[in-house]
């Protein structure tokens, strides 16, 4: 017994914590409800505040408590509460305090409009240990409510943010870039800094998802019109051009080869999972194709993590168009194409999505990785092309 440093402060990430073996479930996202008090024009999942069919099907506090306890027994350290608007749940405080008492850190993703003095008092006494993530769509009533679709919502959001500030509860702001506001991003950031809301710049959603339940073609039509053009996405990504290009060189220096017939370019369900508000366990919050979700009401987390998701990770793409394009493309790190988004856009898991393809090709051309009109799956001497790009500044 020679050591003298007994207690070590560690940052919460998998690499720092697990010197030997990581738990089979480290982090769990729970969509407490799909209902929301806002009616954002671009939202991929929301239902009206008092939507009865949703209310009737939602997991009860007891159901969620059982899931949390099993998650903890599997080593889970972090739970994310999202929605819809998770603070619409009347039992949110109970679920929050249960999570913290079980030894979980809590990530809350909210529009901040329902943050009450009572809630900030609870957060002051029992801190979430993660920054509250707040979605904010503008810095004035008109711009915000043109997106949120609800009068009074901007004032309520700012009041919620002020309550967090007053109680020194850490939070981050997440903005969304639309075709209509892309040119106002710098104004948004300047205003957010002036108001002392954030330490650095806000994070942005720049690639809008279509409806996750494939439940409204009219809403999808509207979301398509709100999406940034490929040039618009590049404009936001490259606001700090030098840093962006440096990041891209670093990213491509790690490129090895196109994905081939691997359906997933990530590791779905490896250490993480997401639960929808009705009891379906997903590998991530977006992946909702019925064949990829696990019915937790009739199963258990351990079975899902040990048996169901590993099978998913091994799946292969079959669509000839996917194999001919995505399977041979070297831009997967620039592209949002994935089975979850393929499902939202096309109804299956492996159909190339033209919008994402256009965006990634546009960025690659601006970086000099592709020639005009060249397809990324048809580049001759790919290794040389990437090497030239990576070494571009040497």
């Amino acid at each position: 017994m020679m050591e003298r440093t007994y207690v070590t402060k560690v940052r919460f990430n998998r690499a720092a914590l697990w010197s030997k073996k990581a738990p089979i479930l480290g982090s769990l996202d729970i969509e407490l409800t799909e209902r929301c008090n806002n009616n954002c024009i671009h939202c991929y999942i929301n239902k009206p505040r008092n939507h009865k069919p949703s209310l009737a099907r939602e997991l009860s506090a007891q159901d969620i408590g059982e899931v949390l306890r099993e998650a903890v027994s599997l080593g889970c350290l972090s739970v994310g509460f999202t929605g819809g608007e998770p603070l619409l749940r009347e039992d949110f405080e109970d679920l929050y305090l249960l999570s913290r008492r079980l030894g979980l850190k809590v990530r809350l993703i909210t529009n901040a409009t329902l943050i009450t003095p009572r809630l900030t008092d609870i957060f002051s006494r029992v801190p979430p240990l993660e920054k509250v993530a707040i979605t904010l769509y503008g810095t004035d009533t008109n711009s915000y409510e043109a997106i949120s679709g609800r009068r009074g919502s901007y004032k309520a959001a700012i009041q919620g943010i002020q309550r967090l500030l007053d109680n020194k509860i850490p939070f981050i702001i997440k903005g969304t870039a639309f075709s209509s506001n892309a040119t106002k991003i710098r104004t948004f950031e300047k205003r957010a800094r002036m108001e002392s809301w954030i330490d650095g710049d806000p994070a942005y959603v720049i690639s809008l998802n279509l409806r996750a339940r494939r439940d409204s073609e009219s809403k999808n039509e509207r979301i398509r019109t709100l999406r940034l053009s490929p040039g618009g996405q590049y404009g936001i990504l490259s606001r700090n051009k030098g840093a962006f290009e440096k990041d891209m060189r670093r990213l491509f220096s790690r490129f090895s080869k196109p994905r081939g017939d691997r359906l997933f370019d990530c590791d779905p369900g490896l250490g993480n999972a997401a639960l929808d508000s009705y009891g379906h366990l997903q590998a991530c919050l977006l992946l909702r194709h019925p064949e990829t979700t696990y019915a937790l009401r009739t199963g258990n987390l351990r079975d899902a993590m040990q048996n169901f998701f590993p099978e998913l990770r091994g799946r292969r793409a079959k669509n000839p168009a996917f194999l001919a394009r995505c399977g041979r493309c070297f831009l997967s790190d620039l592209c949002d194409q994935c089975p979850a988004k393929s499902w939202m856009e096309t109804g299956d898991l492996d159909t190339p999505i033209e919008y994402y393809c256009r965006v990634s090709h546009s960025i690659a051309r601006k970086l000099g990785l592709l020639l005009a009109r060249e397809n990324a799956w048809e580049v001759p001497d790919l290794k040389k092309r990437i090497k030239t790009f990576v070494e571009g500044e040497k």
Partner: protein
Amino acid sequence: MDPKADLNAVYIPSDDIVAREIEGELIIVPIGSGIGDMETELYTLNETGQAIWRRLDGKTDLKSIIASLSEEFRAQPTEIEKDIMGLIEELLKRRMLIDSGKP
């Protein structure tokens, strides 16, 4: 002034933390405010710390824990005592441990 450990005292984990054993690591998660620095920090105990922590059962005083560890690790009680006092005082300072008040 930093708190001092008492060899005759029985210490127990504070209600302000939850200690969790996950895949061989003993991780202390702050619950009440003021334990960590917010954000993303947790705490782990080294092997010595873990061996001591597991004996903080609310019944055993530090003297008995020293005797037990001395036997298990075949080490001199004086050496064990240094480790025990170091850990307990660190945990008391961080409000992760309290004196149970039991004799």
